[in-house]
């Protein structure tokens, strides 16, 4: 049988050409090519992938030239494609043939990521994040290591430290800052008394300002930032208390306590007792974006006298929406009480 591809005369009944390995029996071959969908998704995906690889490689080459111009020690002949894939640690190694090392790095990174998420925002969480950054740095360094032409240990160490700092500040730190617009983590101090749905030592995830879609309601527990009002000493930081009035509600402060729309707010604890020490009355309507909360963590000390001034207290208990950090939605720590927090619970 003569091969169509190279013309070699093969033995009869041969399946493949002895010279070029082309197939000789073609009767069962499909001749209808697979077609693309209307969106040409496969082509678009590959185009985007190749463009990304080229861009990252191009950026790497530019940085390499800049570094050479500055006489910095940057290795040559780096596998920039593998570096680009090391956005996820270990993938670059797997693509460049170092499958075991790549798998080890990838698995370690994923384990640190999962444990970090599970322990967020407890005291363990920063350690797992540090582990992720370390693994990531090691992945980059191990790809560059064979080509390093450094003359001394110090320069190599400085390079490693610089890489760690860049990754932790500008990559993971940036991602964390961006993520805080969606989810904010609070690690409550262990000696904090139980407040509403949480207890001391809990790790709480609150919804961030970009995730929060529906307006706050009366009874919602929220994290809010505390600031010092004039003449009042307040513990600076973050508070967690209940919303007792929403925009449009009428708030009245008097010796009888605080009323919302003429009625007593529910379950504000000792706050009502504290309000009964007021010396004057005050009444106002909450404007758009203002919420009244019942702060339970204030110590008021105006010039040494245990007195309340209604104007200062107004400034304190009425928080605008941008000082409200978010509503707690999930308790991640301790694991024995892991779960979602119901609204108003």
């Amino acid at each position, binding site marked *: 049988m003569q091969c*169509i*591809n*190279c013309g070699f005369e093969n033995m009869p009944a041969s399946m493949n*050409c002895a010279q*070029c*390995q*082309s*197939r000789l029996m*073609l*009767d069962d*071959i499909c*001749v*209808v*090519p*697979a*077609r*693309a969908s*209307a969106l*040409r998704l*496969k*082509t678009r*995906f*590959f*185009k985007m992938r*190749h*463009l990304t690889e*080229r861009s990252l490689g191009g950026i790497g080459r530019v940085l390499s030239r800049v570094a050479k111009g500055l006489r910095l020690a940057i290795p040559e002949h780096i596998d920039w494609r593998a570096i680009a894939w090391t956005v996820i640690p270990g993938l670059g190694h797997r693509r460049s043939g170092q499958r075991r090392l790549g798998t080890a790095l990838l698995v370690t990174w994923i384990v640190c990521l999962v444990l970090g998420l599970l322990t967020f925002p407890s005291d363990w969480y920063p350690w797992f994040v540090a582990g992720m950054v370390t693994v990531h740095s090691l992945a980059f360094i191990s790809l560059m290591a064979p080509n390093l032409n450094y003359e001394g240990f110090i320069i190599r160490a400085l390079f490693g430290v610089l890489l760690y700092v860049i990754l932790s500040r500008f990559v993971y730190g940036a991602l964390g800052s961006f993520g805080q617009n969606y989810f904010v983590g609070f690690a409550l101090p262990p000696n904090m008394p139980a407040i509403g749905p949480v207890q001391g030592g809990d790790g709480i995830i609150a919804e961030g300002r970009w995730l929060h879609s529906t307006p706050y309601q009366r009874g919602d527990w929220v994290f809010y930032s505390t600031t010092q009002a004039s003449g009042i000493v307040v513990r600076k930081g973050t508070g967690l208390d209940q919303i007792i009035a929403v925009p449009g509600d009428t708030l009245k402060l008097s010796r009888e306590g605080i009323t919302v729309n003429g009625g007593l707010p529910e379950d504000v604890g000792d706050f009502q007792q504290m309000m009964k020490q007021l010396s004057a009355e005050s009444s106002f309507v909450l404007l758009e974006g203002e919420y009244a909360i019942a702060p339970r963590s204030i110590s008021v000390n105006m010039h040494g006298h245990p007195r309340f001034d209604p104007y200062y207290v107004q400034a304190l208990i009425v928080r605008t929406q941008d000082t409200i950090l978010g509503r707690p939605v999930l308790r991640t720590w301790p694991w024995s009480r892991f779960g979602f927090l119901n609204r108003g619970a």
Partner: protein
Amino acid sequence: MAGRFANLEFDERHGHDIQPQVVGETGPDARYYLDRAFEARCWNEHEQALRTYTRCLQEDRTAIVAWVGQVQMLVELREYAEARTWSDKALEVFRNNGELSAAKAQACARMGDFEGAQAASDNSMKAPGCSPWRWSSRAEVLLARSQRHHEECFTRALSEPDTELYDRVTICRIYRYYKRPTNALVFLQPVLEAHPELGYLWLERGYCELDLGMSAAATRCFERSLEVRQDSRAAAQALAAIGRRTLWGRICAGTRRWRRR
């Protein structure tokens, strides 16, 4: 809904008579289909050409020209990923075939996989034999990477012993794809002057002039193309598109004309 049936073959609708005839040495019907496919691709009817190449292969699976044609038509239809996959499948059947490797190089280049394109082009040059298509494909890889010497490769393609008129059209289309209509016209003009009776050459010139913003000249070329072949859908669609241009389209055409001065 109509899209699901768009690829069914209704011979009367396309106006082509695809009755099988016994001709050629490749097979009783394959040669006929090859000729029809070539005619379709000349007139920019890539979908029709692809189907005809497939019909050819159903008659004769050893027609490598048809395999190459399928890959080229998939590329013209901008289905680059599918073209690359199909070229790989064809290369499994016809190992190290230079023409198929060149077609794969073109698909890779248009998809942005320059390394794959370079490797495929190198394979096509190493394979036994030579052809204008291999040099044209290599030139396209260089053009895609914005490297020099693509013009030399195209010139080399035209100096091959088995070069044909259509090779200049191929070069013209490659330049047009990479938005170099002036270079395209440089290669097209000589063959157009030598063969003004070929309507598809006027069609290509019309596209080049449209890319240059010369709408009036492009219109004349498309009309000339329609005089040669009244049922040319590509020419009719191009004329209709010129007629449907909005004010913004005219401004863009004027800008292109001004830039190309």
